[in-house]
């Protein structure tokens, strides 16, 4: 991989890594001086940079890549990103299923702080959302952007900086939870120094994307790129605003948010909901808009629906965050706006889902025969289902029943497992043979097995949580003749137990599916390239816009 970098890029990489190693050393020293947990993170940064530095040094004296590289796309970072995404998937889903069993059997953990529920849970959410989802988005965005722009990435250093830097952020985040470092903001737990690092990485990502788009050879920007760009741009804004904080000391991990009280809650859920919108929806819609028509071999059903869907989703989503705070200290008028914009959001969301499913018209025989395409089809269905559910749950009177119950957990997992993970697995199964120039995946049977494991796992999970959530909601609002609540909270806990066991089994199936997928991808990579290798590149390399 280092052999793909020019000598000057290798030098630039080493310079960045040495600076990073020094920063790690300073953090470690500062943390050690105050016996602060930042010490451990300093060592993590130091070891991480030295590890990557060794890797670069190892390949430093290899010959420079030839100029012919400029006539083909640069896919090494995409390949690495997909492998890393699958590793995060197994880690995140394993922690998730452990937490699921822990909720059913509270003793299923170690007698240690790191293994308490409060630390495992963010390790799960960060592992799957940012580790698995984020890496898959970065890897596929590089792949899609180059092909739909017919332009090679502008250089070879930036994509690696984005990918490796992003994974350093993920490692700081997850290791921080186990060490007890957290801002206690849901999906924005990492502390100030990790947040600053992500800003640097993310701005590089945005600039890289814009540089490639600016050099595109196609006159129009394809819809997948609208979505990827919205994802990158808005996540940058969300991340910066919600993480505005004052460190208690530059030599310590702790910081205090700039917001307090109900403003803090509103900012947090403006961030939280738009993270769902622009990380877990827009980014993955970008993925869907490329891999689904490509795999189906069909044109997008409607260009006009793409436009309405995109602008509707980006406009309406921005307002919807306050529906997370119904019946709270948040002023009622803000709740009203959150609710009504969530209702209006349904139509653009369904336009996107319908556009995907209608694109399959003329290719339904492929959906039947090809599990990869079926992954994507099922993802579009779950996208439609969970966006309907989301708009429905945003209605105040529905929320009165659903809020704080497992229904919410069921809803997010219909989205996370059914939509995000299925579209990602489908896209990965499509792109792996293309990237590694193989005829097909190592085992189509295992793809089929993964599909059914994932679907069964999702359905069991979601149905268990729907049942459990609605029962909880009803138990919490049932009054008896004496004018008092019929059930104590513990009564509802006892009633949840069978559903928690079912949920953990569903999660286990999903995890096994991901492991099967890892094996299949690994074997595909290891298998020698056949003569009839697949490619998704429709145009001759000569037609490509070379690097800057």
């Amino acid at each position, binding site marked *: 991989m280092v052999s793909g970098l020019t000598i000057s890029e290798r030098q630039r990489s080493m310079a960045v890594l040495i600076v990073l190693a020094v920063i790690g050393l300073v953090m470690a020293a500062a943390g050690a001086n105050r016996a602060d947990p930042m010490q451990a993170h300093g060592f993590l940064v130091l070891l991480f940079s030295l590890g990557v530095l060794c890797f670069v040094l190892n390949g430093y004296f290899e010959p420079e890549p030839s100029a012919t590289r400029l006539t083909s796309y640069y896919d090494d970072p995409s390949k690495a990103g997909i492998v890393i995404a699958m590793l995060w998937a197994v880690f995140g889903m394993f922690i998730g299923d452990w937490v699921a069993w822990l909720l059913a059997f509270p003793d299923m953990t170690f007698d240690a702080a790191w293994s308490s529920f409060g630390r495992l849970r963010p390790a799960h959410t960060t592992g799957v959302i940012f580790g698995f989802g984020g890496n898959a988005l970065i890897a596929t965005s590089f792949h899609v952007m180059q092909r739909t722009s017919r332009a090679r990435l502008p250089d070879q250093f930036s994509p690696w900086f984005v990918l490796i830097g992003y994974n350093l952020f993920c490692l700081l985040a997850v290791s921080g939870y186990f060490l007890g470092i957290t801002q206690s903001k849901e999906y924005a737990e990492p502390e100030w120094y990790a947040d600053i690092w992500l800003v640097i990485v993310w701005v590089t990502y945005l600039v890289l994307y814009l540089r490639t788009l600016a050099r595109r050879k196609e006159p*129009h920007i*394809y819809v997948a790129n609208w979505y990827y760009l919205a994802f990158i741009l808005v996540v940058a804004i969300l991340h910066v605003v919600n993480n505005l904080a004052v460190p208690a000391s530059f030599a310590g991990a702790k910081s205090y948010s700039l917001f307090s009280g109900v403003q803090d809650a509103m900012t947090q859920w403006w961030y939280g909901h738009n993270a769902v919108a622009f990380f877990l929806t827009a980014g993955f819609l970008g993925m869907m808009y490329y891999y689904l028509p*490509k795999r189906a071999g069909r044109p997008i059903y409607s260009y006009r629906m793409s436009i309405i869907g995109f602008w*509707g989703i980006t406009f309406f989503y921005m307002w919807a965050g306050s529906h997370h705070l119904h019946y709270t200290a948040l002023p009622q008028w803000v709740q009203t706006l959150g609710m009504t914009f969530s209702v209006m959001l349904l139509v653009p969301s369904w336009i996107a889902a319908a556009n995907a499913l209608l694109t399959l*018209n003329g290719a339904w025989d492929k959906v039947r025969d090809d599990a990869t395409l079926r992954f994507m089809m099922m993802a579009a269905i779950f996208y439609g289902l969970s966006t309907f559910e989301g708009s429905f749950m945003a209605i105040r009177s529905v929320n009165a029943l659903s809020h704080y119950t497992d229904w919410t957990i069921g809803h997010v997992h219909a989205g996370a497992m059914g939509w995000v993970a299925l579209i990602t697995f489908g896209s990965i199964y499509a792109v792996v043979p293309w990237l590694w120039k193989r005829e097909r995946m190592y085992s189509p049977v295992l793809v089929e097995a993964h599909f059914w494991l994932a679907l069964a796992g999702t359905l069991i999970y979601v149905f268990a949580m729907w049942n459990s959530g609605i029962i909880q909601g009803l138990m919490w609002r049932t009054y008896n003749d004496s*004018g008092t609540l019929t059930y104590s909270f513990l009564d509802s806990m006892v009633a949840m137990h069978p559903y928690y066991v079912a949920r953990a089994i569903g999660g286990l199936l999903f995890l096994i599916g991901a492991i099967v997928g890892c094996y299949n991808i690994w074997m595909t990579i290891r298998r020698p390239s056949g003569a009839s290798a697949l490619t998704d590149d429709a145009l001759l390399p000569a037609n490509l816009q070379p690097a800057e």
Partner: protein
Amino acid sequence: MAIGERDPHSGHMTTGHEWNGIKELNTPVPKAVWLFLIVTVIFSIGYWLLMPAWPLGRTYTRGLLDNDQKEIVAKRVSAAAQGRSAWTQRIAAMSYDQIRADPALMAYVREDGHRLFGDNCAACHGMNATGNAGFPNLTDRDWLWGGTPEAIAHTIAVGVNSPASKDTRVSQMMAFGKDGILDNDAVLAVADYVKTLSEPSWAKGKAASVAKGREVFAANCAVCHGDQGRGNPQVGAPDLTDRTWLYGGDIDAIYTTIYTGRQGEMPAWEHRLDPVDRKILTVFLLDKGGKP
């Protein structure tokens, strides 16, 4: 200007754009989509007219229905309290015996007591009030601090070793071994003796140890637990002659108790639950313990 072509399957024209082989049809947006978009927008505008919706500087549009979630919840809470007061007033006014003799009132106590107990007490004492290691069983009629209604009500109000109440019940069993008050042989001996109080057969073959333990007991333990080891509800000292054990009755558990001492804690509820709720809980517990 890109030239579209006709898609043979759908019959629609493409837009003429192509990205790495992906084309797009120029299919018109279905009428149903416009319809639903309009319906959701009209619904939203209607909702904005009726409910608090848009900010106006320091105030906001209040809506035609004059709906205010804070007023609504305050009204509902007071209405619920009023409905409940029909029987809670009688609870407040009546004596414990009178309440227990009134089947209609007891039905309310059992319903409400279940919820009160579940939300406040069950985390330690268990869903069925049968206790856990270190947390007494409340159904066995064996009361550490006295089993009269007044004594139970007082325990609930002030708790045990609770920093939240200045009148709290205080119970400190010293760490006789850890703090060096007794040497290890003495702790072993008194453990044997205590064991014989509820299980005389334990003395078999341990005559010397039990005899020594009896002396140690008289000098160190009898102050609280009584000469006969029958306990003292004034200081929450358990009866050691029965088979009820708070921290376990096997010889190892008894040894540990004597060695490290015990300072259990129960929260005071006088600031968290109102007097009627505490009275309901008291009657609920008397009822759980069965008839005397």
